[in-house]
């Protein structure tokens, strides 16, 4: 009986972790290619979550379906942000880029605060209390759907980078910026595409996460940080690493929430980061560069 509880919590945590993984994947793709750390990542996800809340409240549209149009809008926003602001910062020092995105993050958080107020909001879908039973395991339907959606989106992104010409071109930019310029790639446009894709990822992840958690304007920074922890744990620039890192963090959060207290769960995610930096600074899937 006791073991069942742990197993249930662990599976739930891993499923949630897959959605975390997709969120972190967006960050990882942006960092891997554009070499800019998107400090407004969690805030962008919060935007998507509010879009989904609003659509649900007004038209009763399921966040898992709305994920597609929201991701498209987020793609456009990311594309414009890269073209309008970030492209001119690529050659600036790192801390300049940081501050630029922190500024964007501050503006998003407080614009959401003004628009939606400080209270937590969520969606109550029809299947909110459904569950699947497999042997002793009882798994929430929302978590299963969200995790499946996360895997589908991640796979699509993976295929895009692997098998399409544009995806290959983007990987070329990531590998060698000067080389990509030399062979005549429009690097700035490809960067914008990449930033857009990263934002679309996090937008989709936001819609899935909305099935599992409430949203307030202030949750953004926490998710940004969580995404960093996951990306560093999984290995910067590694796509499978982000998903793995997400599962590890989701699992740890769930188990530590059960063993200690849920409010302390984020401490354990940071503990993973510290342990990782101590013993394997390149991450689970990362390659050692120095």
């Amino acid at each position: 009986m006791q073991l069942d509880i742990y197993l249930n919590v662990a599976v739930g945590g891993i499923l949630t972790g897959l959605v975390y993984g997709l969120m972190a994947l967006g960050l990882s793709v942006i960092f891997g290619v554009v070499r800019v750390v998107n400090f407004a990542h969690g805030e962008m996800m919060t935007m998507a979550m509010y879009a989904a809340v609003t659509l649900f409240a007004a038209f009763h549209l399921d966040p898992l379906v709305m994920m597609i149009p929201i991701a498209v809008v987020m793609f456009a926003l990311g594309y414009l942000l890269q073209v309008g602001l970030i492209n001119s910062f690529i050659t600036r020092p790192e801390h300049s880029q940081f501050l630029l995105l922190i500024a964007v993050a501050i503006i998003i958080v407080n614009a959401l605060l003004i628009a939606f107020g400080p209270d937590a909001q969520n969606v109550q879908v029809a299947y909110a209390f459904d569950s699947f039973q497999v042997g002793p395991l009882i798994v929430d339907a929302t978590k299963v759907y969200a995790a499946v959606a996360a895997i589908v989106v991640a796979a699509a992104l993976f295929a895009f980078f692997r098998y399409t010409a544009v995806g290959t071109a983007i990987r070329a930019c990531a590998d060698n910026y000067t080389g990509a310029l030399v062979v005549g790639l429009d690097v700035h446009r490809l960067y914008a595409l990449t930033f857009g894709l990263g934002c679309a990822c996090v937008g989709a992840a936001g819609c899935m996460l909305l099935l599992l958690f409430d949203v307030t304007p202030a949750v953004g920074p926490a998710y940004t940080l969580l995404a960093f922890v996951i990306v560093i744990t999984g290995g910067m620039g590694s796509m499978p690493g982000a998903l793995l890192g997400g599962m590890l963090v989701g699992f740890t959060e769930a188990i530590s929430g059960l063993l200690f207290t849920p409010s302390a769960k984020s401490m354990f995610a940071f503990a993973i980061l510290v342990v990782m930096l101590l013993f394997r600074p390149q991450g689970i899937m990362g390659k050692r560069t120095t």
Partner: protein
Amino acid sequence: MIARLTADVPRRSLLLLAALLLIFLLLPIFVGDYLLTVLILILFFSYAGLAWNIMMGFAGQLSLGHALYVGLGAYTAAALYVHFGISPWLGLLAAVLIAALAGAFLGFLAFRFRIGGVYFAILTIAVAEFARVGFDHLSWTSGSAGLFLPVAQYAHNDLWHLRGHPVMFYYLLLVAIVLAIIASRLLLQSRIGYFWLAIREDEEAARSAGIDTFHYKMLAVVISAGMTAFAGVIFAFYYNNLFPEQVFNISQSILIILGPIIGGVGTLFGPLLGAFLLEFVAEGLRTLLEWLNIDLPGSNQIFFGLVLLLVVIAMPEGVWPWLARRLGLSERKR
């Protein structure tokens, strides 16, 4: 020492500096209670910004988690005072020690593997957040319910126990700022300072020139952290209450770095000027919104965001270098 401090500073700058100091010394006589609290806030962020500047401005290590050292300093001194009645000045010793140890731990973690730039900045946030959640659950300091100091009697100023009128805190912070600027200048003129600048400009080159970069980066973090702890002690005894949610918050870290960034990273007077400009404009905006009868929570923060955005885009070096050139006191960019 004074000769060394004033070496190659133009006479005009020295005079202006003396005038500025005089103005600050006399200011509390002329301002009302409200303005005094605003000034204390400005001085608090100026001092914390100066401390942060040592790490980022001189040694080039971006910390986005300086709230960690403010919080550790504040909680150490306050808890020692509340539980054992230990004077904050003795508490300060413990606070500096603990903050410096935290900085050393963080630096050790990062610099051992030459984790720099992005990773380092994220690590600083993560450690600060770790401390925030940790203190939320630490019963010795009453966790998230907050730690309260016995409220001060304003009858007389008790400097030894830091109980007294806000004016006392104003002058304490002013002294701290003067000391911090002197210390920064002396450091910059020393071997350590030159090594820091070398590391900031090109770490690989510094290493190949034989500089023990690990050692000097550690030194920067430890000094900066220890200095910031004093800001924390003042914070605790000025406000008389501490909440992890507040002192360790990432927005606190960002407020600390806004001043030096707007003023000019790596300059001696940038942090001061930046804190001033920021608070000045924020107050102006607050008054304007009140006058227009607009009550929007968050509008101030949006404004901070926009200012940061504008400064980063249009004045990446900060306002001070620009102003110094205008005034003909160009502090050589170091």
